[in-house]
């Protein structure tokens, strides 16, 4: 539904985005990853038409991105805030109407969300009178009240307290199940594996990796296994079908991290080891996104 093609964006003297392309499919939860300063916010601002790219094109549902798509996108920026001296209900109506909703429709949708997030009692309160948590809920409501097809969240979990972060995450996933496409940026890798279908990894204004989380993880499997056994410590003479990377010895068990020789499988490893010792565990070592991220970034540096 969102196709970003060869985007280049330069600010005086430095390049924020260098030929970045990506495809977001309908109904996906898409993660935009990268260290600080990689160009995530620049890309998000371009998708939101806050700034325009120097070159490159963006297609939204097959059409070239234009002003009419603004109402189909919900955006929660990294730097969040609301008018402090304005009443919350009135302010939410204002923001919804800026997204093209009628007043009546906005009120109806807002009532629904306020009740859902249990902030309906605060309708006539000014933002400055609300607790931080309430403000964060209100901020989220203003992002999704116009039922956008694409929800863009810039660092959604930073700045939220853990309870609200969890609540927002659940609401976002529920919206996703109802058909909304989610694009969010983060530098917190652990949230990626839990939430994302696909990711793009940006570093220093360039795309260095993209694809589905599953594919990426598979491609980073390198036939490494963790094996735990009990009994006497084994010694290896080089005839075994693997090489040993690490050995850890504790009082009641031994653990080895092994890398399989080319053309061998885990079964052969077991066949080799079973006669010699008793196996407690054999587990494939799949790199976490965090490890992939660090590996990718440090390799490039």
């Amino acid at each position, binding site marked *: 539904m969102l196709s970003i093609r060869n985007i280049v964006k330069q*600010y*005086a003297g430095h390049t924020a985005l260098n030929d970045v392309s990506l495809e977001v499919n309908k109904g996906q939860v898409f993660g935009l990853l990268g260290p600080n300063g990689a160009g995530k916010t620049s890309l998000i*601002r371009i998708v*939101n*038409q*806050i*700034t*325009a790219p*120097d070159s490159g094109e963006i297609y939204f549902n097959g059409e070239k991105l234009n002003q009419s798509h*603004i109402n189909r*996108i919900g*955006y*929660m*920026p990294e*730097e*969040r*805030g*609301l*008018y*402090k*001296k*304005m009443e919350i209900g009135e302010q939410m109506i*204002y*923001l919804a*109407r*800026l*997204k093209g909703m009628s007043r009546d429709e906005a009120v109806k949708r807002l009532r629904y969300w306020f009740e859902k997030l249990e902030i309906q009692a605060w309708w006539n309160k000014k933002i400055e009178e609300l607790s931080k948590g309430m403000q964060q809920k209100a901020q989220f409501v*203003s992002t999704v009240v116009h039922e956008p097809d694409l929800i863009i969240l810039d660092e959604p979990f930073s700045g939220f307290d853990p309870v609200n972060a969890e609540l927002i995450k659940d609401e976002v996933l529920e919206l996703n199940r109802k058909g909304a496409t989610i694009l969010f940026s983060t530098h917190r890798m652990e949230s990626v594996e839990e939430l994302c279908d696909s990711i793009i990894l940006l570093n220093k204004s360039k795309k260095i990796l993209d694809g589905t989380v599953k594919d990426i993880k598979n491609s980073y499997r390198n036939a490494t296994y963790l094996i735990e056994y009990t009994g006497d410590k084994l010694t290896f003479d080089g005839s075994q079908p693997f090489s040993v990377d690490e050995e850890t010895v504790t009082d009641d068990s031994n653990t080895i991290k092994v890398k399989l020789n080319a053309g061998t499988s885990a079964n052969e490893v077991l066949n080799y080891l079973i006669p010699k010792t008793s196996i407690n565990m054999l587990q494939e070592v799949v790199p976490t996104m965090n490890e992939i991220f660090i590996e990718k970034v440090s390799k490039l540096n």
Partner: protein
Amino acid sequence: MEKILLIIQREYLTRVRKRAFIVMTLLVPGLIAAMFAIVIYMAKQQEQIVHTIYVLDESSAFKGKFHDSKSKKYVTIDYPLTAAKDTMQQHENDMLLYIPSATDKKDSVTVYAKKKSTLSLADDIQTELNNIATGNSMVQAHIDTVQLHKIKSNIHVQAQELTDAGAKSANVGASYALGFAGAILIYMSLFIYGAQVMRGVIEEKTSRIVEVIVSSVKPFQLMLGKIIGVGLVGLTQFLLWIILSTIVTQLIGGGGGGHNAQPSPVTQFTSNLGENIVYELSCFIFYWITGYMLYSALFAAVGSAVDSETETQQFMFPITLPLLFAYLLSVSYFFQAPDSPLAVWLSIIPLTAPVVMMVRIPFGVPGWQLGLSMALMIAGFLFATYVAARIYRVGILMYGKKASYKELAKWFFYKE
């Protein structure tokens, strides 16, 4: 377009509902009413006092020739000066006019009063004495005073303005006062409402809501909506001031005065202006609007470049300088020399024109100068809005970055 209207609506309503707006709107007519009431009260007090002037005329030359007036009553007495002085001590508003037998000497006529006599009253008496003395002398010199009265001309200078439509009577005073007031009003409102625009921009930037809004509308729409919204607040305030001031001064003038009620100063003022009022008011409105648009755009750009109001100083200075310069010169010098080259040029340059032109208008401005000034005003505010918008769109998204002039120039040249 619909979104700009929404923004204008919000900017307008949030400001008009503020307590400060309501207080200011009521306070100014209240002050005018209070001033007006004091003036009327003072005038009434003055009228009610009737001074009784006891005339002790030893020369007998003035006997029976004094004329009573509303505030003066002459009573001739014939007891000696010392006794007369004693009676004076007891009455506050009474005076004793002592005319010795020989009046040809200077300083011989004396007025005694318990209170220091007011200057105008002493003047009145002096004029009257002189008139009587002159008359007496004429009679003595066998001059026919009746004949003389006929000959004596009574010239009163009336200001006439030469226009294409022929001579037109104009009250220079009222016209001038309007120009002067216009200059001060424009000067003040450019600051007051320009600063409101700036504060609004800073508020949006520091509260970080601006990024949410510019994901729905273009930064230019947000800036324009804010400028127009605040401008309408200013116009509303002026309109309410004029209406409320007229009402309260009418009420005070009509209610307290009875049959000799004075017309309200506003109606008195406007009737004095005659046909000029339409011309001067339209000039005022034109310069108010274009001047406000020009300066508030600059103020908006300043607001977008900073993170708090305290940081605005370095950018405010070059903006306020021409305005202050124009204002000080206008009130001190230009109204005496409205056609001096400096006044002419400053009334054409957009940054100073709104204030300086207001002072010049009552004295008549050549058509080409007014036309050029207005054309440049429109060009000026369009240009200022363009420059400001380019700085604004980048500035509002730059958090925690100290901006310098170099930085602002860079922002200006950023592509979309």
